[in-house]
């Protein structure tokens, strides 16, 4: 016998289901909002505090300028309102680029080995080692690179290339993992289609498998770059600090953005005793925040470029 509330043969949505649905909706939207809070808060803080340095000109007056981006720290001391990150941007970009150039070929080839050639014990060993490498603390990678160069080149060697090696130790496992997953996603049918056309295995891998997975590989490499571009500890050890431009990875110390942030922050407020000289006590803090803002913008730009590249490479669909 049908109950009195039933008006259709299918009954109605029960009160319990309505209640659960409502509760879950609130929960899910709540979790989303909660996850968004730190992100928005962080972005807002970095932007609002990062602009301070751009609002101070060479005379210590409040006037918007971009000197910060094209000055180095050469000859800057105390509370001088000048001083910028041009040398740190150059250092970060060149060291990260070098790390990418080292780790992408190694990571790509290792992934090709794991997916297309590897079998048995060696494959398992490589997979295990890559897993272990993923968990290496960045400071250990920095110490290792520093120690290797200390033995090979000489004690106390601090060069851009040492930092690049340290960063590539952190990048390689990420690149291997990402590339491996992407290569596995390439359907076997495409490999067979290529073989059946009389294409040798190496050309099949190069022009079909990697080409098909190129979009995903690009994304993986970008994530790996984003992972290491903000690394501080290994670069502090392996590259050191510098106040002026140095674009030579093989000669002398270099400055990088994360290390710049740390070293400015550590200086603390500067004394301003002589009213004759332009002086801003909080300038070091301004610089640190502004450098953090620039670092975030660089990572964002990188992600944007990667999206464009991966869109260009991705398999085309549609009519």
């Amino acid at each position, binding site marked *: 016998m049908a109950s009195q509330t039933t008006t259709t043969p299918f009954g109605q949505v029960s009160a319990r289901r309505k209640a659960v649905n409502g509760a879950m909706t609130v929960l899910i939207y709540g979790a989303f909002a909660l996850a968004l809070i730190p992100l928005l808060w962080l972005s807002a803080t970095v932007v609002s505090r990062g602009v301070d340095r751009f609002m101070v000109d060479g005379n210590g007056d409040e006037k918007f300028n971009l000197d910060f981006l094209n000055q180095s720290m050469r000859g800057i001391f105390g509370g001088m309102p000048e001083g910028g990150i041009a040398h740190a941007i150059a250092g970060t970009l060149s060291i990260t680029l070098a790390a990418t150039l080292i780790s992408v070929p190694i990571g790509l080839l290792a992934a090709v080995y794991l997916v297309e050639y590897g079998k048995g014990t060696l494959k398992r060993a490589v997979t295990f080692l890559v897993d272990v490498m993923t968990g290496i603390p960045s400071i250990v990678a920095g110490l290792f690179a520093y120690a290797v160069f200390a033995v090979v080149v000489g004690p106390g060697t601090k060069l851009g290339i040492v930092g690049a090696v340290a960063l590539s130790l952190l990048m390689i496992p990420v690149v291997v993992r990402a590339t491996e997953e992407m290569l596995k996603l390439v359907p076997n049918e495409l490999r067979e289609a*290529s073989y059946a056309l009389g*294409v040798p295995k190496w050309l099949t891998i190069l022009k079909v498998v990697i080409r098909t997975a*190129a979009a995903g590989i690009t994304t993986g490499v970008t994530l790996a770059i984003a992972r290491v571009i903000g690394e501080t500890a290994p670069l502090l050890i392996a590259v050191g600090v510098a106040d002026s431009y140095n674009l030579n990875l093989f000669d002398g110390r270099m400055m990088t953005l994360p290390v710049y942030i740390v070293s400015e922050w550590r200086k603390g407020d500067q004394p301003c005793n002589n009213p004759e000289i332009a002086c801003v006590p909080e300038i070091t803090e301004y610089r640190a925040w502004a450098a953090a803002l620039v670092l975030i913008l660089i990572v964002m730009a990188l992600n944007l470029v990667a999206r464009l590249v991966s869109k260009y490479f991705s398999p085309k*669909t549609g*009519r």
Partner: protein
Amino acid sequence: MSKRIDVNNLNVFYGDFLAVEDVSLAIESKSVTAFIGPSGCGKSTFLRTLNRMHEVIPGARVEGEVLMDGTNLYGPGVDPVAVRRHVGMVFQRPNPFPTMSIAENVVAGVKLNNKRMSKSDVADLVESSLRGANLWEEVKDRLDKPGSSLSGGQQQRLCIARAIAIKPDVLLMDEPCSALDPISTLAIEDLIHELKSEYTIVIVTHNMQQAARVSDRTAFFNIAGTGKPGKLIEMDDTTTIFSAPAEKATEDYISGRFG
């Protein structure tokens, strides 16, 4: 352009597992040969030994010989890659390269092998191959569109165009219509009839009417039970197989009384 194939006492293995046992048969030049039989009986496995695609699977190997116009494909010093340039293959599911346009897919066999060709030669090859696969009229205005933008039946004909663009002697088809609707199937069957004048064609099919419609000769494969190797039961003219097969097993299968 077309060649005959003689298979002598071929055993096909996956590792230690014997998948197909002791097959001997002859495939005539410029004819269509159909392989029929229940699932798992080794028809596709056997087909893949004819262009050495079988050994792409790790651990897979064969014993015996496959003679193409007298040359053993499994003889010493034979390059499997070169064999595949002479024996083309069309797969069960259409598999155009997703990163390539329609035209690029057609000439993939040439381009992937890093061979240089003049632009006009490429255009000629694209047109002649697509005409050969009865696809030219449908796609000639959108050759630069991605291959995956075509319908399933068109994609399969694109794959046939891709296979004949490398000018093989033999064309193997592994259930080429099983993923297609009846109209696309008809288009492919008509195409097989036309291709027969130039190529030796071997087709695996689950559809017995299709075997009866397109093939000149039919081979029936069967399997005694799970874990047992597949065997060639009999091979004869298609009309004979479907009207008066010599073996009881064949008759049971084609009349639906198997197992």
